[in-house]
């Protein structure tokens, strides 16, 4: 029962905040809604016994990515008229709603239906140790490639965003 209450609370909040992300006119408000949304999703991860991933979600997303978003929004310092008018043509909204409805219907229809709850898993499922053993065992190569990828992304971003070419 407790699990159900938590799920409906966090799940409902996730949906509301995701909606806020896409309807807010000011990007700062969108970013704030996104932070809340990502926290709720982290809670859902924890409910799925992915403890390590839940912690990483908070650290990486809320701690790093969203701070980056806020910094850039601050740097851009958009004036009110630069936010663009929220004018949405009726056809565009109708099109988006129709597309979402179709996509949602389709995805919802095809999801494999289950009535039973989750099977039991061992205590060590989703802990740092289990995931770590995977990362340094069978998934070592992508782990190393990810480090090169991050290095390239950092250097490239700096080279692009830096104003002066020395």
């Amino acid at each position: 029962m407790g699990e159900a209450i938590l799920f409906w609370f966090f799940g409902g909040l996730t949906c509301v905040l995701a909606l806020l992300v896409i309807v807010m006119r000011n990007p700062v408000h969108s970013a704030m809604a996104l932070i809340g949304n990502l926290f709720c999703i982290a809670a859902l991860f924890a409910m799925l016994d992915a403890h390590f991933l839940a912690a990483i979600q908070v650290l990486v997303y809320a701690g790093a990515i969203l701070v980056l978003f806020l910094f850039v929004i601050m740097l851009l310092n958009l004036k009110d008229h630069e936010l663009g008018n929220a004018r949405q043509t009726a056809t565009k909204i109708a099109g988006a709603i129709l597309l979402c409805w179709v996509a949602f219907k389709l995805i919802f229809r095809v999801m494999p239906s289950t009535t039973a709850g989750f099977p039991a898993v061992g205590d060590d499922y989703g802990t740092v140790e289990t995931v770590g053993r995977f990362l340094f065992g069978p998934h070592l190569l992508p782990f190393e490639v990810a480090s090169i990828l991050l290095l390239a992304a950092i250097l490239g971003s700096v080279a692009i965003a830096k104003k002066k070419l020395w």
Partner: protein
Amino acid sequence: MSNLVSFGYIVPELLLGAMAVILFLLSAMRRRNLLRKTIFPGLAILGLMAALSVLVNRTSGGIFGGDPGCISGCSLFFGLLATDPLADFFRILVISATTICVLISIGSPALPKGRTGEYHGLLLVMCLGMCLLSAANHLLMVYVAMETVSLCSYLLTGWDARKCRSREAGMKYVLFGGVASGVMLFGMSLFYGLFGDLSFQGLHLALQGSGALSGAMGQWAATLSVVFMFAGFGYKIAATPFHMWCPDVYEGAPTPFTALLSVGPKAVGMALILRFFYSIFLFPGSMETVIGASGQIPWLLLIGIVSAVTMTLGNLAALVQNNVKRLLAYSSIAHAGYILMGVTAGGQEGFEAVSLYMAVYLIMNMGAFAVVSLVEKASGSEELQVFRGLGKRAPLVALVMTIFLISLAGLPPTAGFIGKLYLFAALLERGGFWFLMLALVGVTNSVVSLYFYARVLKSMYMEKADTDLPTIPIRNPAAVTATALSFATLFLGLFWQPLATAARWSATLFH
């Protein structure tokens, strides 16, 4: 195979990664400008050549000696990477493509002088990602390698600091790419949930073993997840309906990099599609045995339709372009459609045709972009007008461009003709009404494409330049590379046997 043993088999990738790190480190130091100009391209080419020589050394016995060469079938890193001729063939292709790109880049005004080190480092990282993607045998590896390629391409597309166009193209590329990778990821997670595995071998076993999918729901879900994943793959090769980014990005990106972008990701995307569909849905070495769940997913139909629509749309849109870069962008979309014909045909012939056409396409398309880069450097624009009177002003450049255009149109005696011949032969070999229809669409499209390639020729030879346009200097690496590539195009059009042997070897999956 375990991790430690596996590292011995990815020496080319390790060399590329090490050289990229060295370039990044060197670019952090200050030094005189003269050194900067030559040392970075030199080091990049050194790294690429080292990787290429390791690969050639490893494969030459396999290609021409007759023995399968690489221990085919065994998988590295606990199944993350495959070691087979297909992977090695495409590795050689992308490393050559990156080398050509480095050569064309020398002295290009589109690349900021102070950022040469980072530029070459990113090129090497992108090459590393492409090498890994051509061997990826596991959806996790596919995702990581594909994102490595994508991130480097976003950055390099937006590299040109002088033009907002370049930044704009980079931003559009990031937005489209992010959506495509999100959709692909959602498809992957559905597929994972349905079949309980991410490795291609595991998925193959799950698909064949599970018998029929549970009811209409399961079939819908599996088809939808395959379509979602194909969105990610199709975005890499610029197939319709995931091609919208392509003309804008090709036009905005620095021209030397556009040359690589139009060839590298397309090649590895094709390798990925071949490996994914043919190793998951079919028994190795057979075409007909379709049992269990894989019989219920209409993947072959999907690829065939995408192929026909892609080439038709690409060719029709190319008819009205006045910017040569944009024209070549639409032409590259059309070529993705042609190559997908080979993927649809499948089997030994189909694989061979895809490998062969990809190699030929690499030579002629990079050559054409090299010429555009030369013209752009001299006259500051790549509109069709600046090509007027090129036959008078710069006869050699015009001749080289003519060879590439004839080859792209698929006329003899060039390599493009041989490539098309192999593609159509593969489809005819397969037989069957729908395969013949697809071949017919391909032939019609080739005829249509003659028109817009001829427009460029007409502009070069028949029309007079309205103002005095500058001549084009030919004593630089880019011009030499273009000339060498045009020789290769002609040579392979007459003596294609060595390339065909290598392509046949790359299709060992079907031996």
